[in-house]
């Protein structure tokens, strides 16, 4: 094993990311649910001028609903398949 491989393996064993980094699905889910609700409300209350500008498509409503769906997808995915925190690595037994 080369010098470099030994050094990186040692750092990997001490690394805290796998055990302590939060799950990004929670953030994507949360942000898109919030955005989805805001934009959907903007769609429900859309003015005539808004609709005319957007080629008679209620784009806020559709975009808002789609964002809401994406946000919920991430939250459901997180609930159904939570990340498995790795066993705290002990010397000599680190995960690859």
């Amino acid at each position, binding site marked *: 094993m080369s010098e470099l491989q030994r050094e990186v393996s040692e750092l*990997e064993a001490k690394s805290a990311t796998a055990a302590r980094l939060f799950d990004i699905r929670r953030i994507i889910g949360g942000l898109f649910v919030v955005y989805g609700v805001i934009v959907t409300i903007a769609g429900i209350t859309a003015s005539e001028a808004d609709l005319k500008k957007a080629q008679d498509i209620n784009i806020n409503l559709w975009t808002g609903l789609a964002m809401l769906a994406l946000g919920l997808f991430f939250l459901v995915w997180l609930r159904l398949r939570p990340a498995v925190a790795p066993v705290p690595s002990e010397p000599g037994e680190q995960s690859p």
Partner: protein
Amino acid sequence: MHHLADGLRLPTNGLDYAILAIYFAVVLGIGFAARRSVRTSLDFFLSGRSLPAWVTGLAFVAANLGATEILGMAATGAQYGVAVVHWYWIGAIPAMVFLGLVMMPFYYGSKVRSVPEFLLQRFDKSAHLLSSVLFAFASILIAGVNLYALSIVVEALLGWPQWVSIVVAGFFVLAYITIGGLSSAIYNEVLQFFVILAALIPLTILGLKRVGGWDGLTGSLTERHGGNFLTAWGGTGIGDPNPLGANWLTIVLGLGFVLSFGYWTTNFAEVQRALSAKNLSAAKRTPLIAAFPKIFIVFIVMIPGLVAAVLVPKIGTAGSDLTYNDAIPLLMQELLPNGVLGIAVTGLLAAFMAGMAANVSSFNTVFTADIWAKYVVKGREDTYYLKFGRLITAIGVVASIGTAFLAASFSNIMGYLQTLFSFFNVPMFVVFIIGMFWKRASMKSGVWGLLAGTSAAMVNYFVIYQGGVIDIPSDQGANFVSAIVGFVAGAVVMVLVTLFTAPKPEAELAGLVYGTTSPGMEEAPQEGDQVWYRRPALLGWGAIVIAAACYVPYSF
């Protein structure tokens, strides 16, 4: 891109600004929340090599999906028509698949922390130092380009003075990377990816409706620009005139092979995302997962560009005060009501920041691990390098603010970036490909290949093309040719130098050259990595087949 036209000011209101403010808060929040996961320098620079493939894959595509890319590719669409698909289907997918299937075992398995570090292992210190310094220089330059472009767009769209957006965006990037390291950069890229989709998809749909659907779009464009404007290969026969200034051979070899492979397989800002994956299988899948969104993103960038070409027939010419780069901002102003408009502004700003952050987070790694720790202050404890990494991140952001104005002298941002890449990345690719596949390639051949390739590409572009020695119709076409010239020169010089200098001892090449393995490559696949939809070969070849199929409707 000098200035966006006046009169592109967006009718933003409190709702849009609320959406923007929420995003900025989340960006900072991610940085602070990621802080507790940073214990070692490996956590800070490579997320401890522990992220899942879908996260690194989306970050891989998002790191490339900066706002300069989005605005620049829409501009290319407005200017050259459907030919812009070349930058995606032939100019990205094959290289991404090659990176995942062929090169990743050597990159990831050898446990190198950066692209230059691979050169140190495979060749020698001179190749390593040269590529590290070039990369550090280029990434600050490109981060500066991003920042400058951001300030112009924000000034035109929102009316903020340029220095305000430079300071605000610079501060946020500095904060979240300094605090949370690469994990924070990657998480923000994944988030930005989805926000950009939420901005561009509605814009594309409304744009199409505005011009009477796809048929209305193609009808008006054929009438005005001729049928070739709507085909990928029309008019690209050798010797035929076409606006791109390139023929099929320079497209395939220059863009599809040399430029694209140089960018996707050796640009550390991209490769770093794959190196942070949790195991070899996830690292291989990183560029492969990225390839699928990349195939389809062209539609939501090209169509707004084409729509703008219909709405403003004179766009980009002396008869209009709108430039090609104004295509997407123009449609945002014309079509998006408040609400979605806020999402679009947020997506654009997020893309600018992510583009800059990708460069800063790769710059700090190379500067710390490859330059500082190997040549300046060697052998200190890990906490020292972690601290230094945070310091150099801040210095890098400040330096890129200083270089922001270098971008001002080129009219098309994409052309500018590609010019840079053809000089720095082309010789990198030839050195990698020969180094990985030819065991005999000597230690000294690396640095000479890099020097020869870079100088040949520069001489071809600045002396032969710009000096008018040969006649190439456009900057883009000249880029493609310069790339091919740099590649060939680098390859020839490497072979010549190898013939007269000593090879690397066989034992030191384990895991770095095709046909050898290193301890890191023998790890057993994780449970679940064997299911069919995670098989790299299937993902890779699937992407190639889909990209090829996408060409069919635009080729005849």
